[in-house]
């Protein structure tokens, strides 16, 4: 069976033609995209256009909290409204909190992060790690991004799942699934697992969250039937 590819992060700023983005997404072979946006109206328009282009759109919230308390506050406030929540971890306190919170779907470690991932940190991380490919394309951030990706693969690849997303906000920043997976292959991950990072792993997160957001969901493993 053919893989269903998903781009786990597209950022909509409203400056670009949304149908152009969707057309490119479709051409590149994605079945679905997860989009964050600067306003609700842009997202609604994008979702509507997605139906025309037969691309399934999910909504993502990207949090960039300063400390633990603001992260927890935002998670309480927004978890019910979004299919995916990702956290950009600028410091170790946020990273460790986000890593253990089941309401967080993925952790994003920015290229300029001021902490190291070692065995101690790795032992606490249970959520997926997301690597936005845009930072690889950006020449200024590339070296730091590769360093972070290398750390992630060395310490975390055996323990947690890795997702590669494009973080594109313009059509020419979008990448095909094989391009996204190639970064993991170069860093030593085998082809099948690398392709899982743009297909089965993000799909499983979406499926899990769709179930959680459904009105029939009561608790983990408990569903209202009928």
């Amino acid at each position: 069976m053919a893989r269903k590819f998903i781009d786990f992060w597209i950022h909509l700023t409203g400056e670009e033609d949304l149908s152009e983005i969707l057309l490119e997404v479709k051409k590149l072979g994605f079945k679905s995209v997860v989009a964050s946006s600067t306003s609700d109206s842009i997202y609604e328009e994008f979702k509507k256009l997605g139906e025309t282009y037969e691309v399934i759109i999910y909504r993502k919230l990207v949090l960039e909290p300063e400390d633990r308390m603001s992260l927890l506050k935002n998670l309480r406030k927004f978890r019910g409204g979004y299919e995916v929540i990702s956290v950009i971890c600028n410091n170790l306190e946020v990273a460790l909190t986000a890593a253990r919170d089941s309401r967080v779907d993925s952790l994003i470690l920015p290229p300029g992060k001021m902490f190291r991932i070692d065995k101690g940190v790795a032992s606490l991380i249970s959520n997926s790690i997301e690597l936005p490919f845009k930072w690889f394309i950006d020449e200024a951030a590339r070296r730091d991004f590769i360093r972070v990706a290398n750390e992630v693969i060395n310490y975390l690849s055996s323990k947690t799942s890795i997702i590669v997303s494009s973080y594109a906000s313009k059509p020419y920043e979008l990448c095909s699934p094989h391009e996204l997976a190639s970064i993991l292959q170069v860093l030593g991950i085998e082809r099948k697992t690398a392709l899982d990072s743009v297909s089965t792993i993000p799909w499983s997160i979406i499926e899990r969250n769709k179930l959680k957001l459904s009105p029939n969901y009561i608790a983990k493993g408990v569903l209202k039937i009928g």
Partner: protein
Amino acid sequence: MVKRKKRYIIVEAPSELSLEVFKKLIEKSYLELFGEFGLIEANLRVIKKIDNKFIIECSHNSVYKVILSLSSIRRLDGEPVHLKIIKVAGTIKKVKEVIAEE
């Protein structure tokens, strides 16, 4: 002597891009990412340009490195450029078929 397996990558690029410029672009990008040894190991060659499509030949275990190098090329003379990978094929015959279909 063991025959080295090759792969062919079909890349779509802006039509005004010449074969020489494309060759320099991909080699520079590959060199930046994987160094001289990597470049030699990859046996990278741009063999043909048909319309706006370029055919790259490389060793089969360097394909993903070439793909990554191609995706790192996003600007040409300050203008945004997107090189689109159409197909990775194992034989020239298959490459010709794909180009004919396009």
